[in-house]
């Protein structure tokens, strides 16, 4: 006989059947009308070509005009033995793992620091900005920054008397590191923004209550922020997997102004593009390129399912 003290009225906790599952009303038909246009376009533009890609990956095909011959899993087998492919694969993994750790570490630092900063909106707008700029433009900016003789970074180092630190940043040895730095610069802003907005949704009284209990700012972060933004973190992790595996334009454009970049900078998508669509036409390896595409899709799928499993937890409402 506990009187509800206005915490949660009983009616809000009740499991609800959907409103539209009405007696005497055929639900799937209604839903069908709403879903059909998007579903049809999606099937035609994304799903069907994906299926076609799987098929192409089982053939040898030099391009439009050439007859595709079925070769089974030959493309995959050859990729497995291909040093270049393995290097590309490792680079993508490095972006995914090393880049991911750095991007999220930076994003967390921003999230924690900006909680108390007065100019947080301005900072947030600035760090998100690279995400609305065309990747080609970002690559141009990065090129200008790192150019060997006349680049801004080397110029800056010389200007402050640290010419010993100048490097040929875009040389094959350092190229991939430069790419990573660029990706981190671009995507930290994106993920910091998402995390910050997640943190903003946590009502302040949790922090006040924890503060009254004597929690330090690090404890606030691990005991309040992380658990209460877990759903945002989980979505962010999934988005990072997708972004890290798919990211292409920036690397491609940085690698060469309109030419195919050198193999030292290839990641899976760049590798795929170069052999399947690049300037080596007309001797393209569409089959093998498609095999790489299929591998990427499978990677994304597996990792997303895995992450969802690992990070699954009851939804916390507040």
């Amino acid at each position, binding site marked *: 006989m506990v009187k509800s003290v206005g915490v949660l009225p009983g009616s809000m906790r009740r499991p609800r059947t959907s409103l539209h599952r009405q007696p005497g009303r055929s639900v799937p038909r209604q839903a069908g009308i709403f879903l059909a246009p998007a579903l049809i376009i999606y099937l035609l533009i994304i799903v069907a070509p994906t299926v076609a*890609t799987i098929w192409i990956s089982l053939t040898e095909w030099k391009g439009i005009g050439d007859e595709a011959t079925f070769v089974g899993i030959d493309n995959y087998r050859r990729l497995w033995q291909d040093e270049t492919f393995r290097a590309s694969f490792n680079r993508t993994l490095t972006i995914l793992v090393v880049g991911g750790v750095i991007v999220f570490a930076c994003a967390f630092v921003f999230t924690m620091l900006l909680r108390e900063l007065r100019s947080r909106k301005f900072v947030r707008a600035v760090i998100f900005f690279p995400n609305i700029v065309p990747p080609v433009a970002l690559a141009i900016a990065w090129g200008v920054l790192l150019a060997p003789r006349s680049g801004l970074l080397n110029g800056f180092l010389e200007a402050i008397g640290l010419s010993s630190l100048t490097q040929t940043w875009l040389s094959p040895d350092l190229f991939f590191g430069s790419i990573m730095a660029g990706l981190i610069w671009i995507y930290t802003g994106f993920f910091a923004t998402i995390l910050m907005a997640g943190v903003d*949704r946590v009502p302040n009284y949790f922090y006040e209550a924890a503060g009254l209990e004597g929690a330090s*700012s690090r404890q606030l972060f691990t005991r309040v922020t992380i658990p209460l933004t877990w759903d945002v973190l989980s979505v962010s992790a999934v988005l990072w997997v997708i972004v890290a595996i798919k990211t292409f334009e920036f690397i491609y454009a940085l690698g060469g*102004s309109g030419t195919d970049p050198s193999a030292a900078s290839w990641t899976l998508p760049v590798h795929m593009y170069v052999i399947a669509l690049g300037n080596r036409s007309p001797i393209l390896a569409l089959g093998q390129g498609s095999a790489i595409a299929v591998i990427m899709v499978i990677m994304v799928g597996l990792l997303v399912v895995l992450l969802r499993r690992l990070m699954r937890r009851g939804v916390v409402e507040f």
Partner: protein
Amino acid sequence: MTGSGANRFQTGVAKRLYRWLWRGLGGAFVWLWVAFSLGILAWIILAAFKRNDTVFADLWSLPDSIEGENFSDAWGLLNLARTSFNSVLTVGGGTFLTMAVSAPAAYALARMGFRGAGGLTAFFAFGIGVPVHSIVIPLFLGLSEVGLSNSLTGLTIAYVGVSIPFAVFLMTGFFRSLPTELEEAATMEGAKPVRVFFSVMLPLAKPGMVATSLIVAVGLWNEFLLALTLTFDEAKRTIGIGLLNTFGAMRYTSNWVGLFAAVVIMIVPMTVLYTWMSRRIIEGLTVGATR
């Protein structure tokens, strides 16, 4: 407890030192990052007004005079009259159509609770993970089959297709975040699902619609891969290809300042949109991504 006084004092000092370090280093980190980002942007904007022969000779100088010559060069390099028109058409049309089909689909997935809605939502979300360039060849062949290759209509349809997964994903989150009672109230008043959607849910989801369409539009505006592979006529070029071509031509012309001017031209519309609407974009991204 009496003996721990000095100890407590020490930890107090250590704590303060730690905090001070964290604040100081953290602040430096944030502001260096911001200064770096703004610095690059500012340098490119300034460089767009400089002269090609001196732009790299004296990195840190201000432009001698504000001249529009680089911009008229860039105008020609980008073929701006043509490409901007094509981009506005395909990006505008693509965004509008994306929203027109994604909003009802997301509503059905989020609110109609039919069997298989969860699986279908995941099926749409799968599309987010498909790399665009892995499907361009079959897509090109398919569009050729129906006579839509090398056509802005075909490109627009492709734009809609590649935008649907993320738009449906975000809008589903939005519709989930709206209160159920409003739908129920409308139903009690006699409204049928189509009516409930158009009279109640769609107006309520307006912030989400605005945010989602902005995100879709920014993505398509900056896109060049589909445009590059699905169209090949000079007359069908979009601004994204314009920039890529300008960049490619650099190898022969070394017209850096023209390239910088082209970059400035290309990012201006999105920057204006962003400064005006950034709050909505950012909020939209989170509500949609987390509900």
